[in-house]
């Protein structure tokens, strides 16, 4: 089972991102789970969303997880949230930031010994450039596809198009650009 934890602010689309990822992954025949810890949280409040992916039906309902991937889609949360909580020796981090990876890690002592498992990408700038709004969830999916090596990019884009099929063509195109750019730019 692959487990993913998203760190986000309410309103940035982590729940939509987690559900979108679930939608795409389900079309490959796998079983998925997407949920969040938010309840009555207000827009801007720190929150977490989660994915589980497995070949068999997922019947665990504990919220607790040891994540294989930690996706941080708000650039400030690495400084305020405990993003390394319950991590494993193999947990990979994808963090949205305008800083270089070296600059970021130099400010975050808890990531010093995990350098080779930390990946950075500027989801904010990418979503502003492509979608025109700061909704970093879609670019994060592109970065995740690259880092996880779970899918080929073209395959993922094709499936994502289907998930978004109810939206106008312009929105579909800009989301595809955002995913592709993040895929290419994540380091």
């Amino acid at each position, binding site marked *: 089972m692959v487990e993913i934890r998203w760190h986000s602010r309410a309103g940035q689309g982590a729940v939509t991102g987690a559900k979108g990822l679930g939608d795409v992954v389900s079309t490959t025949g796998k079983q*998925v789970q997407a949920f969040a810890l938010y309840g009555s949280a207000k827009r801007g409040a720190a929150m977490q969303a989660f994915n589980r992916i497995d070949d068999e039906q997922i019947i665990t309902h504990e919220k607790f997880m040891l994540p294989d991937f930690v996706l941080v889609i708000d650039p400030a949360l690495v400084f305020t949230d405990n993003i390394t909580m319950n991590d494993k020796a193999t947990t990979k981090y994808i963090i949205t930031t305008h800083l270089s990876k070296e600059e970021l890690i130099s400010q975050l002592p808890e990531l010093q010994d995990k350098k080779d498992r930390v990946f950075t990408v500027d989801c904010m700038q990418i979503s502003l450039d492509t979608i025109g709004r700061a909704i970093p969830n879609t670019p994060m999916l592109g970065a995740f596809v690259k880092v996880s090596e779970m899918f080929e990019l073209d395959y993922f884009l094709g499936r994502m198009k289907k998930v978004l099929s109810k939206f106008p063509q312009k929105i579909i195109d800009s989301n595809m650009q955002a995913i592709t750019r993040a895929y290419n730019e994540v380091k």
Partner: protein
Amino acid sequence: MALKYELQEVEVWDGNYAASHALRQAQVDVVAAYPITPSTPVVENYGQFVADGYIDGEFVMVESEHAAMSGCVGAAAAGGRVATATSSQGFALMVEVLYQASGMRLPIVLNLVNRALASPLNVRGDHSDMYLGRDAGWIMLDSFNAQETYDLNLCAFRIGEHKDVRLPVMVNQDGFITSHTAQNVRPLSDEDAYKFVGVYEPVDELLDFARPVTYGAQTEEDWHFEHKARQHKALIDARPIIEDIFAEFEKLTGRKYNRVESYMMEDAEVAIVALGSTVESARVVAKYLRENEGIKAGVVATRVIRPFPFDAIRTALENCKAIGAMDRSAPGGALGMLFNEVSAAVYTTSSRPLVTNYIYGLGGRDLTLEQIKDIYRELKKNADAGEITTKIQQFVGLRGPKLEFFKTRRG
């Protein structure tokens, strides 16, 4: 004429969305609703379906949950197929009318998305509202995941509207854990779903002016007892009808439901009895402990909470040695409901397994697999010792000093 909704073979739905689609497919005549977290999306999605032309029925927005259930009572008495959804405080406000609905023998389907009751205010999942409704004379079904919420909604119309049942039905799902967790769901096509639910044939409908009837009559000591006794008998007698409808659903979908769900109980020494999503988490742990620690663990769950499966739960549990009854509701100065009801059932067997009570997960507190493992290990100790080695009631996952009550006088 409602538009056809294109569905994929596998959808990724949360429990709320699954419930909304089931209501849409059942072609409900009237939904009267007042939204409340975490059940809000059930009627929010339904309202969207109405606006988008997928529903022919009426969607009545009312000023409170008391009015919502009152609207449902009126529409059901008039002869319509009726449904609504609520949670927690909204359910509490409905309670007065819940008893009216069951007493008038009106087949209404209520999606109860389980949430804690204030005070303190809390929007997250526990079973306080479910427990509040248990004496209201409704049939109560319990789903453990989004697929089951969908399936049981379709079955609920069949059960409640059956001419020998004629009772309202609640479909429970865990707030947030089921209602807001998206998982793979295999829906039926609109045609197949409606074919299964069937055309509603009302009985004694108020709008049949050629044959006037009275709803909500007053009866004092002359007839009240007979009415309530008949209502109770209708609930108890619904058991084989529920089984028949579950069997028919299995033929259609391959998905089998039982009044009591047993997992790995054939040779189980220790068993957890639970409700909601906890049932599935316990199954994960039971399998793990069998493979890794040699503990013969099993899980038993009341799929049908009312009519209480006194018969089936006894059969499921009489061959095990120790049982942990898990209640996700503040017990309010007593042992938990599941403990009391399970204990009463197994007390009438010759084996009389040891039963203990675990209170957990109030207000959405997480129940981890590790905690469930510890519970099974305690049950195993009880089974080996032949007596209860812990206090009878314990709180799990509570901060601060351990809270536990009552010693056994057996053994």
